[in-house]
């Protein structure tokens, strides 16, 4: 009986996600333009948050470099945007981020986790200052103009990246790599002793997650039309995914999605009215979530659901 329940639950999840996907794919046909723009922003944060969680969730290595990969994607798009067709630009944005992540990972991921945190924390500032210096002293420009495309195109591209990302995340989670990642998070030495090539698994997963952030950056650049280093390398892009993933819960694939969707909506809603209160509220939510919701919103709901169904059992 247990098996039947598991199977039906899984097919239910599949059907539900297909339904949501169809709704999302057709939404530009009937939804107002503003909703499409809002959904694009939500996708942007969802992509960054899910790819952040793909690496940092199971391994416990906290990466604060998301903004660096995202920004590299943006800059690739700005430099190559006129020369190459858009799908190629997006792939290039992802690839450049991928390579940067390989380098960073190879440097720091063979050491203790804390070096990784420290290094990634400063990476955004480093790239920001370097590109600022480069633009002022070498090319003599500040900021670039990116060729634009229509909002609907941006939306569909984001949707495609999102679907590919979810498939990748799902496959990694349910393969031996996912197991290897989790064993690294639980006890790295033990994982190494059981034959996991620890450094390789860590670096590759980190680089794959960076690919998606770079690709998202390359797409978003076309929506922003004008970019400069301070826009492209905004440290908030590193911090927000961490907050969103913790709030949503990292145990399930849907946790980061829910967290990112809620926070992006909140951001759209609050940022024009109370810009500073809104960041303050984010900070408070973060501290409270770490203290009282170790498994995030999804974990909390699961726990409450379990308690509820247990009580129902007792009653009958």
């Amino acid at each position, binding site marked *: 009986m247990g098996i039947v329940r598991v199977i039906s639950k899984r097919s239910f999840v599949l059907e539900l996600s297909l339904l949501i996907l169809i709704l999302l794919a057709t939404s530009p046909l009937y939804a107002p333009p503003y909703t499409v723009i809002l959904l694009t922003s939500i996708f942007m944060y969802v992509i960054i948050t899910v790819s952040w969680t793909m690496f940092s969730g199971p391994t*416990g290595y*906290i990466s604060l470099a998301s903004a660096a990969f995202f920004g590299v994607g943006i800059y690739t798009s700005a430099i190559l945007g006129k020369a190459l067709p858009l799908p190629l630009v997006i792939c290039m944005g992802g690839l450049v981020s991928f390579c940067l992540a390989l380098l960073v990972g190879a*440097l*720091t991921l063979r*050491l203790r*986790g*804390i*070096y990784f*945190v*420290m*290094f990634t*924390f*400063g990476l955004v*500032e*480093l790239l920001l*200052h*370097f590109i*600022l*210096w480069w633009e*002022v*002293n070498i090319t003599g420009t500040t900021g670039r103009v990116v060729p634009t495309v229509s909002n609907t195109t941006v939306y569909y591209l984001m949707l495609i990246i999102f679907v590919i990302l979810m498939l990748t995340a799902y496959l990694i989670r349910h393969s031996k790599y996912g197991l290897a990642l989790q064993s690294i998070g639980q006890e790295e030495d033990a994982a190494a002793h059981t034959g996991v090539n620890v450094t390789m698994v860590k670096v590759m997963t980190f680089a794959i997650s960076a690919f998606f952030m770079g690709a998202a950056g390359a797409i978003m650049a076309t929506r922003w039309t004008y970019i400069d280093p301070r826009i492209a390398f905004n*440290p908030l892009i590193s*911090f927000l995914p*961490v*907050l969103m993933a*913790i709030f949503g819960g990292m145990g399930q694939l849907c946790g980061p999605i829910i967290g990112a969707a809620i926070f992006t909506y909140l951001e759209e809603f609050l940022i024009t009215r109370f810009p*500073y*209160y809104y*960041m*303050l509220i*984010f*900070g*408070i*939510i*973060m*501290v409270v979530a*770490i*203290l009282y919701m*170790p498994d995030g919103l999804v974990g909390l709901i699961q726990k409450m659901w379990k308690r509820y169904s247990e009580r129902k059992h007792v009653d009958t």
Partner: protein
Amino acid sequence: MILRILDVAIAGLMLGGIYALIAVGLSLQYGVARVLNIAHGEFIMLGAFISWSLYTIFGINPLVSLAICGPLVFIIGFILYRTLFTSLRNSSASPTAFEGKSLLASFGLLFIIQNVAILIWGADIKGYSYLAFPVSFGGAKFAANRLVTLGFAIIIGLVFYLFLARTRLGKAIRAAAQDPSAAGLMGVNINQVLALCFGFGALMAGLGGTLISMSYQIQPTMGLEYTVIALIVIVLGGLGSIPGSFIGGFLLGLVGSIVTYIQPGLSLVAYYVIFMLLLVAKPTGILGK
């Protein structure tokens, strides 16, 4: 030529004094209290802004505000550890789990402190002029406030070193740094000591902030850059080594001053190159175990 070298060297030491001070603070928080405090720079910013307010509103001499800011920021840090971080420590299964959780919590603190500061003081760049007249030093000219900054950084560093080396509480802190649970078994009130360490780390940041406000412009978002620098310094000095952080601070200050002399705007990039080279060649830093 010699004058120029002297110029660069002394400027580097002045910068290094501040770096050393803030890095010792972070080193204490990470090395003993096991909190990699991403919000460290925010305590620097608090110190700087409190001094600014005291100077512009009440006309209080920044050197006097050292004695006001320090304890104030210390109390904030102490209370934060006793409430937030102690409960995280109690709920964490292992020291590594605590490290991760406390890092994320300090992240939340960064948002909170920074935005409270913006609400109080506004987001603009601020500054005041104090002891800004030039002093000639071996032929090279420097602003007096920077010399005072260097002097105070060295004095604070030395006093703190003596405190660690000579007092009973200092001994307890060193014991807790080596092995918190063993220190607890030997009768050290470990929660108290860790909270004190976190407070002292904040204190150093606050004092550093006051000194920074004397010679640099300040704004509520300035903390991040100083946190990055402090992180690089503590890796350079060797994670967990307090003397290492002190020496590393001066070294990095010298590097910064040399790079700024050759190519302004690239000092942070140069720090990062050093960081990368260190990770490849000697991740334990200059005084690490």
